[in-house]
């Protein structure tokens, strides 16, 4: 086993398109809307508690799935189309996150509040604090790290697996020595959990797609737009979280 990891590490530095050792991770993302509503500052205490008593006990989380392809140097995350269950199915909005640790660049495609944006910029990891807690997720021993998302004003709690040496995670989250197996936003408003981890060699899957349509924007501008949008929505007494990725 150790040998394989060494090989994997060495292969990581080989030029692109060669087959590389990697992982395919399926994440389940749960939204607990009854908790998210608690963040709407314009609601009165009465309205917020009414939402909790009406919906709180039934809130089993709105579930979606995403898939991450990762090698030591690159990773790509996509949403998965929900499985047909006989009823109405919504559209999966455009979303892709590509990161390259070697070039320290990222490319993200996101449908944000009615526009498709392409964010092509340098990588910047959140400032993680690694704390003294361990738990096991899906057979992997994970350590806890916390960070602040200053743009969305959210508290992030990540659990990363040291023995999956991939500096990546679901959606935009990365920057830890191991793969992020679980990510919890604001004490359970949104929870990502790795439900399947599959080790296999990757080639094309992890590469940046050639066709990318959308408005080019920098991370700084994106953050600014997002922050303005959240502030404006709150001021206008609208729930901003329906229209953005939380």
């Amino acid at each position, binding site marked *: 086993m150790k040998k394989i990891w060494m090989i994997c590490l060495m292969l990581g530095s080989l030029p692109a398109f060669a087959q590389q050792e990697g992982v395919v991770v399926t994440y389940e993302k749960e939204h607990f809307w009854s908790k998210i509503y608690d963040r709407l500052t314009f609601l009165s205490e009465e309205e917020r508690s009414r939402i909790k*008593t009406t919906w709180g006990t039934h809130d089993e989380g709105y579930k979606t799935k995403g898939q991450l392809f990762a090698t030591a140097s690159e990773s790509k995350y996509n949403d998965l189309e929900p499985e047909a269950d006989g009823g109405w199915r919504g559209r999966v909005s455009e979303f892709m996150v590509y990161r390259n640790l070697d070039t320290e660049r990222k490319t993200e495609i996101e449908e944000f509040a009615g526009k498709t944006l392409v964010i092509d910029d340098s990588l910047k990891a959140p400032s993680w604090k690694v704390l003294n807690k361990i738990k096991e997720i899906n057979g992997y021993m994970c350590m806890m790290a916390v960070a602040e998302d200053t743009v969305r004003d959210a508290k992030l709690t990540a659990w990363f697996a040291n023995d999956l040496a991939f500096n990546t995670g679901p959606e935009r989250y990365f920057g830890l020595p191991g793969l992020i197996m679980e990510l919890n936003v604001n004490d359970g408003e949104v929870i990502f959990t790795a439900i399947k981890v599959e080790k296999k060699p990757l080639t094309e899957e992890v590469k940046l797609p050639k066709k990318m349509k959308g408005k080019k924007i920098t991370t700084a501008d994106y953050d600014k737009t997002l922050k303005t949008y959240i502030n404006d929505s709150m001021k206008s007494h609208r729930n901003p979280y329906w229209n953005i990725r939380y």
Partner: protein
Amino acid sequence: MLCIPYYCKNVIISYNLYSHNHQLALKKILLLLCLCLFVAVAHAQTGGRFTLKGVVGDTTGTGLPEATVMLLTPKDSTLVNFMRTNKAGSFEFKGVKRGNYLLKITYVGYLPYQQNVVPNDGDVTDMGNIKMTFMDQNLYEVVIKTFRAPLSIRGDTIEYDPKAFKVPPGASVEDLIRRLPGLQVDQDGSIKAQGETVKRVTVDGKRFFGDDTKAATKNLPAEAISKVQVFNEKTEQSRLTGVDDGKHEKTLNLQLKDSHKKGGFGKVAAGVGSEKRLEGKINYNRFNEKNQFSVIGLGNNTNQGGMSWDDYQDFKGSQSFNWGDDGDFGFNGGRYIYFGGGDDESITIQAGSGAQNRGFNKNWAGGANYNFDTKKTKFNTSYYYNKNTQDLDATSRQTNFLTNSAFTKLDTNGRLNSNQNHRGSLRFEKTLDSNNTLVLISNFRFGNGTADYRSHQEYFRGVQDSTQLSNMSDITNFSDFNSFAIANTAIYRHKFKKKGRNFALSGGYNVNNSEGDVRQRSTNQFFRTSQTVADSVLNINQTNHTKSLRNQIKSSALFTEPLSKKFVLETFYNFSLKNDEVDRDVFDNKESGQVRNLNLSRYYTNNTTFHRAGTSLRYSYNGLNLLGGIGWQQIHLDGKFAVNQDDPTRTRIDRRFSNWVPNVSLNYDLKNNRYLYGGYNFSVQEPNIRDLQPIVDNSNPLYITMGNPNLAPTRNHSFNIGYNHFNATKFTQMFFGAYYNLYKDQVIYSQTVDENLVTTTMPTNISGGRSFNLYGQYGFPLVKTKSNLSVNANYYNNKNLTFINGELNDTKGNGYNGGLRLDLTPSDKFTFYANANWNISDTRYSLMSAQNQKIVNSTYGAEMNVKLPKEIYFNSRFNYNRYVNDRFGFNQDMPILNVSLYKTMLKSKKGEIRLSAFDLFNKNRGISQSAYQNFVSQEQVRTLARYFMLSFAYNMRGMSHSVRRKGYY
């Protein structure tokens, strides 16, 4: 060795201190602790960057490759850099900013290692050989499985996570503490932490029953606790004096789970006003994780109606909304098999009916609700009582157009209605396992009431109401009724192993029983030769007793099968058998006594059997949902009627209607917040059994109705299409759409009016009626977040057909509706909302084009909210309604101004005192006007006008005060 050597799921452990009674483990851990925490710290450093290196090995010194080495700041453990060790187990961080660090190393199967780094003066700081302690499988399991020691240390606080310590259900906190490593409970219940006696127990940081440490630990359930924390706290004395005497007391803090934060909230409001106006409302809700209990009571004579939606949600809690409880499957749900008559009271609690603007109403209501919710079982029961009395005086004027003439009716009437209902409900939902769910529902309603009706009616020939008096009637009716209804439903849902393959089955049994007595008295005078002395007089004095019983059994089944990732096939079957038994006994009250009226008395039974089977194919992918289906349905009416039960002659109605019913629906999420939807649907409505009976009902001598046994069902083709778009960042929104209905064999009521202006109506079928509606709205901010303008427009066109005295009258209506709405929300202290709406309806009659009508109704509104200093608020609402019909010289204005001034008070703004004035100009009249088929009418109702009110409210959740209107979120 690098792969998954662990077997436990989702257990949180912390490795700073493993405190348990396994001696071996303890020793190792203590050793580790010493290594970690007591590394000597040398002198400070200055400037530049340095290289940090070291070699990670096991206790024998063999290098550990691929170990994770993290460099953290000592202050808050922020991750500065990380890397993996090489083949020999060595690592080297180059160019590290000079400063102190925390080095953290992890390697699977070994206890995590932590050490402070204080760089030396040189360029390279070598940590030397770092030895990691092997955590063998046994130890790991001891730690995680047996003791599940999930504790973490922050400063001097040791924190335990009770989730990992299994205690039996119902165990107290004391039982939990016994299991926590490092804590002991003595025989007398006192607690020792690390050998020291715990002096203080707090709950959520607050003292719990003074200094008795046992009160909380013995009484609180273990399952309510989210965290147990042990720390040293300053003594009471040092806290009081502010001088730290160095003495500390062991304190145990129990943190409650959010869900166990037992809660209660309630609201009470009462108001007293001029004109003898009173209102009051009280509600209280108590809840914990699994139980919700609430009560509500309200009463008013201010036309406020019953419960608002907010009251309803506070009352019903988690059981406020349950979808699919009717158990009717297939397209359009239970549209064809719904239960109850058109004007029956609902069997479930009705909320949000809003204010009543007709007459004077008194409302009383009260009830209690209990919910029990767990993941697997949900139970709800509620009782609700309401009573409404309405005192209503109205005057109306209606002109009916005939082939070559017209007549006008003036009606002055007074009504006094009273009714009360008791409603009960039970709902039980059980998740049998992950694939099977059972829902049982039972709702009942018991109601009774009285209605008193007095009316004076005058009929005039022509369109004027001053000359050519034709008839005059004085009517006095009194009715007394009671009813009982119960609806029971069982729904079973099963999910097969294959995702998307589902089966559902439902069954229902409903009963609706009602009984009523009506006493009808009227004097009808007919004038032909003279305007003052009647040519003939018809007096009616009748009593009728009606008993009706309806039973229904129904069942539905549904099966869905995914054909591929994008296609799902849905097949359904609906069945309903409805049995009606109606016994109506009408007696003429004569001086000699009561005589049965054989024309009006009736006894009938009717069975309506409904079958529908259908299938539909759904395509859903990437936001496009397209459904096409077809069903076949059959309605069978089998009725027998007679004058009386005793009457052996029964006339039979046996009609069977079979139809194919297609259905298409489209829902398309085009990217970027644009949505397109539409559909086509074909429906069949069977004729009402009363309309099918060839019986003449002359209980109103001026309006005689006849049945028609040859009626065919009404068939309706309906189409709709719409488009929505909103721009979330620009805050603009737009929607428009259209719908169209075309009727075949529509049941209409043809009219024959004789020379005495007595109208006889008979239901008949006619094809060609239609309606079309086009609507749109666009809203945009004038200044983002500060002001918003929206414009709406609506056009409709309809064609109504009626037979008037044997000739077909084609009434065409064209309606134009436009509106504007302006919201100004410049600050948290001032808001202003304005709106204007204009509605023009243009009605054209084919038989009498001279009578074409144009009715104009317009509404203007403005609302202003101001927050004044000292928590005082001002609100004013102004509404101006204008009703115009030039043809009749009808021109009415109704300006209504409401103002209120209120102040929040008490702690956390829980109280509010308010002074309000309603309809300051005293102009409120219930005015309505309309033109339809072959008539045009206006009505005015005497209703609650100006009054003043002083009210006080107390809300445990705080009175919410915002100058902003309540919106959707």
